[in-house]
């Protein structure tokens, strides 16, 4: 087993840790979570629901911003600054570089998400002075956010293998938004009662990442339990989709001339 992806991943993580922009984002996210205490204070009886809802949304949105904006620059920045030339002159295969970059950003996102989750837990404890058994759903919702971020990172990395950071951002955002509504796209196809449209809508549904199943924020806020089968299903789906996207990215990047 090659250790090179882990070496590249650690360096990517180190780069993110030393980037001050990231701290600003974490600061903003923690501010958002703290602000939820204020909002919760004026929402008598539903403080917990408001705090969990706002807190998880902040974790998701700020995670998404990081995944897209750092993700699209993972490859292009290395090409633009020519740091990739030195790296690829070492015994490093291009797919190892990509997997390492993906792993490094995922590690960064995991650490940031963990920090923000701690902030959310602190806010919850401040309001209710205890944790409920149902709060386990919050951790599951956070896990789903992480899975979603892994998918978005893989997509951003894929696009950055052949397009500019600006276009990669647009493509990733477009796929993300379309992925949220992928089920609706399929349903619209069914409503048309046109076999060609139905087939096209079904194809789009299967090709696009299905983000619909990753949203457990409302369930967590209401203290509802999340089925274990959904956890397995989302995990397997993410692993499969990320693997396919990374294989695609490697195929594109391996044939690219680094002018």
């Amino acid at each position, binding site marked *: 087993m090659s250790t090179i992806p882990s070496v590249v991943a650690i360096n990517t993580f180190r780069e993110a840790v030393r*980037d001050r922009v990231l701290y600003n984002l974490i600061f903003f996210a923690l501010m958002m979570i703290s602000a939820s205490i204020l909002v919760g204070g004026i929402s008598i009886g539903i403080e917990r629901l408001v705090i969990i809802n706002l807190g998880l949304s902040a974790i998701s949105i700020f995670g998404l911003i990081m995944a897209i904006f750092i993700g699209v620059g993972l490859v292009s920045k290395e090409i633009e600054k020519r740091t990739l030339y030195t790296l690829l002159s070492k015994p490093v295969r291009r797919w190892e570089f990509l997997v390492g970059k993906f792993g490094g950003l995922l590690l960064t996102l995991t650490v940031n998400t963990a920090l923000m989750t701690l902030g959310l837990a602190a806010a919850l404890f401040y309001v209710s002075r205890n944790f409920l058994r149902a709060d386990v759903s919050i951790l599951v919702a956070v896990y789903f956010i992480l899975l979603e971020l892994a998918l978005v990172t893989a997509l951003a990395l894929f696009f950055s293998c052949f397009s500019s950071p600006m276009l990669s951002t647009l493509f990733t955002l477009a796929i993300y938004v379309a992925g949220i509504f992928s089920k609706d796209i399929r349903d619209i196809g069914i409503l048309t009662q046109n076999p060609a449209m139905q087939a096209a809508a079904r194809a789009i549904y299967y090709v696009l990442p299905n983000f619909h199943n990753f949203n457990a924020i409302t369930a967590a806020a209401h203290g509802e339990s999340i089925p274990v089968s959904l956890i397995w299903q989302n995990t397997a789906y993410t692993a499969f989709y990320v693997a396919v996207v990374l294989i695609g990215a490697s195929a594109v990047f391996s044939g690219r001339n680094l002018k």
Partner: protein
Amino acid sequence: MGTPAIEIEGLTKDYAVGFWRKRMRRSLDHLTLQVQEGEAFGFLGPNGAGKTTTLKLLMNLIFPTAGTARVRGRSIDDVRMHREIGYLPEQPYFYDYLTARELLDYYARLFGYPAVERRQRVTRFLEHVGLADAGDVQLRKFSKGMLQRVGIAQAIIHDPQVVFLDEPMSGLDPVGRREVRNIILDLKSQGRTVFFSTHILSDAEMLCDRVAVLLGGKLQGVGAPGEIVSMEVYGMEIFFEMRVGSSLPAALAPHATRIGERYRVEVQEEQLYSALEQLRNCEARILSVTPLRPTLEDYFMKLVARDKTASHPTGGSAR
């Protein structure tokens, strides 16, 4: 003849240029050459000659349109080849959030060295390139010369047998150039093959066993600097000072150039003694007499002029 360290056969690279109507532009045209083990090999040519393209092809950063290349018997698309080579890109840029020590440690990790060996290597190579005191400084605070040296250190951190350097002296001040030159000489004395591209011809003349000259993507010649250009003396250069109040000998006056208090005159080899005699007669003080030989630079300029003439045979505008 020893074992070739680098074998290049018919290496060709075409690039698509233009936005709407793409057309192919040949950047490297059937390059064939061999570099022997232990040689310091200079790859010469003006900007845009195809030097960097060749190095990028050898590093597998871009892919050839035609042709093959092998380094120490391994094809350039074999990742194991990269264990045997080191590479310094042109105007290198490194992760500036790292210190020199961290950067070298990162590259050493890619070769799978254990922690203790990595530490030893990093210290050794920082010392080797004269950066022992700057190891813990972030690279964003490094000067260009220091970056070039850390670039060389990363290229040799794994003791490669073949080292490729792309314009290693470019943009450096005289001190930086001398330091890099000494590092190259050091690598050569250790028996490594050094392949470096440059357009600074004096460096190539000073360092290289052999040179190749590239122009417009085509190889113009390969050989020892002395073989590439004829080493025959084509004239003599005399520097002298005149006594106060005396005038230049009439025969030399039209050819002499005044530089401050000194004069310079260039004469044919067979006219040397007669010129010296004339200078002695008017009590001039001879400062130096130097035989003039064509330099690599003259050869280079001749090739460039020939290439321009070939591109515009009528001498008119390209339009």
